[in-house]
């Protein structure tokens, strides 16, 4: 089932300006694979060279930190709103 992923402002230039993207992935690891596959410039920003997610961004499911929901093991529900946010975001263009 498709889910909505909100993209933080600093990364929207790599998604063609899209503030939200619809994805088919069902968990965080597969979401990262899908996003970086569709938008290759995101890979360097979101992932370490070995593919693990970078330390300084957080993922929220319906405003809850995904680490409280099981992290990589959490299975997305169809109505979940997924937010990717730098852990210390900032800057208004």
């Amino acid at each position: 089932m498709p889910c909505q992923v909100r993209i933080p402002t600093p990364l929207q230039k790599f998604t063609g300006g899209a503030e939200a993207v619809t994805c088919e992935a069902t968990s965080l690891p597969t979401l990262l694979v899908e996003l970086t596959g569709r938008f290759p410039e995101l890979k360097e920003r979101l992932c370490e060279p070995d593919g693990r997610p970078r330390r300084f961004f957080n993922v929220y499911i319906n405003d809850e930190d995904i680490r409280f929901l099981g992290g990589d093991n959490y299975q997305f529900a169809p109505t979940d709103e997924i937010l990717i946010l730098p852990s210390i975001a900032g800057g208004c263009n």
Partner: protein
Amino acid sequence: MSFGPYFERGLRCRDCGKQFPSQPVAGCDACFAPLEVIYDMEGIRRAVTPQQLGQRPETMWRYRELLPAGAEGAPERPVGGTPLLAAPRLAKALGVRELYIKNDAVNFPTLSFKDRVVAAALSKARVFGFKTVSCSSTGNLANALAAGAAAEGFEAVILTPADLEEAKIIGTLVYGARLLKFTGNYDQVNRLCAEIAQRHPWGIVNVNLRPFYAEGSKTVGYEIAEQLGWRLPGAVICPMAGGSLIGKIAKAFDDVQKLGWVTEAPVRICGAQATGCSPISLAVKEGRAEIQPQRPNTIARSLAIGNPADGFYAIRTIAQSGGWADDASDTEISEAMGLLAETEGIFGETAAGVTVAVARKLIQQGRVQTGAPIVLVITGNGLKTLDAVLPPSTPVPTLAPKIAEVEAYLASLGAGDANLTEAPLASVR
């Protein structure tokens, strides 16, 4: 009073090293890691000596060459320059030889160390032309920003969790700031601020002004070194919320060694948290490099940050310095607030209780006794957290105003109160 040029040279990513010109942004656009302000340290070394610093007023601006570049003619309020007090009675109670208290509980103007980081942030907000400043806060930052914004002519919008102590709410509203309270905890409010920063032209001091804001904390470290006679302590015990202060104190000690202002010496940087919100101390004790976030549950509401933004760096600073971290229960925290007040006459808030209670544990573990002084960083005033103070061990009597009642009361006291009946050397008529 003008002291000459600034030595700020912009921003640098703490992870990938990418550099940026000075601007209101908190994170690296390449890797999202936090940014820090960089300086021309060689230029500072040539420009100023500790002897020259010694001639300046005793405020945080004494160290202005080591702070971000401000606007010409900007106000320099008398923030910082708080006492470093020898604490022999607390030292004896804790079983150590030489203990000092860095007392930001009396900082100007709102009685916490946050006055320093606000002063640094507002200096930069002025340079960037912000008219409105903002923050997410567990309380002390709200007070400090509200006061600083009023004094320096900014609008302030302040966001806090709804369960904030009454004293901290009143202590924010009184300055005319706009306060928004939110259901949920600080971490949720902080996340919201990150989203707000992307949409509104506000100087959010702990988000898009964060690198400049954080620099204010270094002045705690510079002052400790100077007040010890340009000497480094053997260990510092510092409370941790977001994890920024402890790292900046360590940075300050590095700076004064690089500048040759002190003899190089190792300092054990130690952190203190509440057991009910201990993501950093648990990571240190379990030997993990990464934070596992928690949902906070502690009376130490000023430290109730379950997802500390600088937690990763705090762990690293502690580990690299040979320091340690521990945490204290709510009961231990309240008791330690009482111990600090009763031994040294200092009324610190819950974070101070955390620091003293953890100091006791670290001393028992033998982690801070190096032969050089131990410094406890007291970050806020107890008047702001009255609900955490334990009631007195004996009830307070209410007597009729008759001498017989006083005599009866004194007669009822035990041997432990002999001081009350002991006559001075000159006899009392």
